[in-house]
């Protein structure tokens, strides 16, 4: 059984893949540190919404990851570290709000509640928020990188959601381009009037 999605990491960001078979992912929050290759993935997460989503996506699409190490300096105001901890401990409500997060706008928009549940089941969170000593971080990775078997499930795959355009029932010109050409701002249509 494949334990890692094709083209992993499934989403891009300020992070790099290391050894995809490693059990541990390292989230350096607002700090930037050089990749330690024994980690499955390594990099920053600065926001409490899209940033947190990316962490979840790259974890659940790689069943080998069983630990997520939160370290580095917390991102001020956004509190991405505290938010990831809250997400892990409490999950989200039906509106996508991350329960218990103190971040500025803590919402998960693009993931299903089941994906969040899967994240919470698949990994154990190691909370070392504030830790910036690279040697100590690498030593934690050393201890965990081959300590667990893969999570017994298929890696979650993601398809980019495309919002469907719905043509409006009526069109009215609200932007004038020339005498006979107008635009309906809401629908984005530019058209010629008789």
């Amino acid at each position, binding site marked *: 059984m494949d334990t890692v999605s094709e083209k992993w990491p499934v989403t891009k960001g300020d992070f790099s893949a290391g050894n995809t078979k490693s059990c541990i992912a390292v989230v350096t929050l607002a700090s930037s540190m050089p990749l330690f290759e024994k980690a499955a993935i390594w990099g920053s997460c600065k926001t409490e919404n899209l940033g947190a989503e990316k962490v979840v996506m790259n974890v659940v699409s790689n069943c080998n990851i069983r630990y997520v190490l939160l370290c580095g300096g917390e991102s001020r105001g956004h509190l991405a570290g505290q938010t990831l901890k809250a997400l892990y401990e409490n999950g989200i409500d039906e509106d996508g709000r991350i329960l218990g997060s103190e971040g500025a706008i803590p919402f998960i*928009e693009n993931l299903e509640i089941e994906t969040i549940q899967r994240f919470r089941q698949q990994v154990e969170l190691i909370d070392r928020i504030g830790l910036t000593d690279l040697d100590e971080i690498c030593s934690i990775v050393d201890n965990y990188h081959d300590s667990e078997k893969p999570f017994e499930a298929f890696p979650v795959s993601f398809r980019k959601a495309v919002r469907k355009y719905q043509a409006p029932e009526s069109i009215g010109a609200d932007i*004038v381009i020339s005498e006979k050409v107008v635009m309906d701002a809401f629908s984005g249509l530019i058209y010629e009037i008789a």
Partner: protein
Amino acid sequence: MFRFQKDQKIANIAGVKIGGNPGELPTALAGTIFYEGHDIVGDANEGLFDRKIAEDLLNSQRASSDETGNPCLVHIFGNTEQALRNYIDFVSEITDSPFLIDSPDPLARMAATEYVSEIGLGDRAVYNSINMTIGEKERQVLKDSDIDSSIVLGFNAMDSGFKGRMQLLESGTSSMDKGLIDIALECGMCNILIDPGITPMGNGSGVSLRITLTAKAKWGLPVGSGIHNAPSSWEWLRDKKKHDPLVFKMCDIASAVMQQAAAGNFVLYGPIENAPYIFPVAAMSDIMIYESVEEFEIEPASSHPFNRLV
């Protein structure tokens, strides 16, 4: 290029006018000072910084503004109440430009709001921002304050598409009693500046441009954004920056033109160090935009770059 059928409202913030149809008023530009990672800041919690360099930066933005005619605002970013107080005291002493109060911490924003009212600077302050997380306490603080200008942030974290953001502005989300524009009015905001919210490249960075057009067509309010946040968070570009920082800078600054071409009235252009570059770029766009609508009998303001630079 085009003009709106709906009357366009013009905000007047301590003499700085923002809004109108394309070609009418020069684009207002706000540079950020004391931002996260700004090397002039020594202690971000206490708000300690290099005053000489900060003064030079404010003066540089002012000089650029005086040259092109694009009005300037100072976007003050602070993490704590103490920091914001120090920054506001300093900025208001050095320049008479309006300033934005920005903090990720609502308590710090609220405390700064009370502070500017207390020291009589409410008319120069722009609250940044009324957004989907606003609570009762924040609303009350704004109502009780002298601040009557605010950015209204359309970023909807529950539905960041076009409809979700428009809905947030118009009627709110499921957990809100009304839309953000009505909340802003209720809080006593006379000068409402819509910011559709910029998301990273690949996460709907362009939605804000369509919302700019739509919000102006629908409400006639001034619209703008911190559009440079899209390229500045673009991984591919950040990688290019390692080899050639100029490439990054060009994209960062050029993004303002996109906002202007989509009828934007103001741009939060990011680091204030970029003032000498952004003002000429914005002035160039303003001139070309004006010349595209000249036949619509649009009159450019006397301070418009068209009347100053060509």
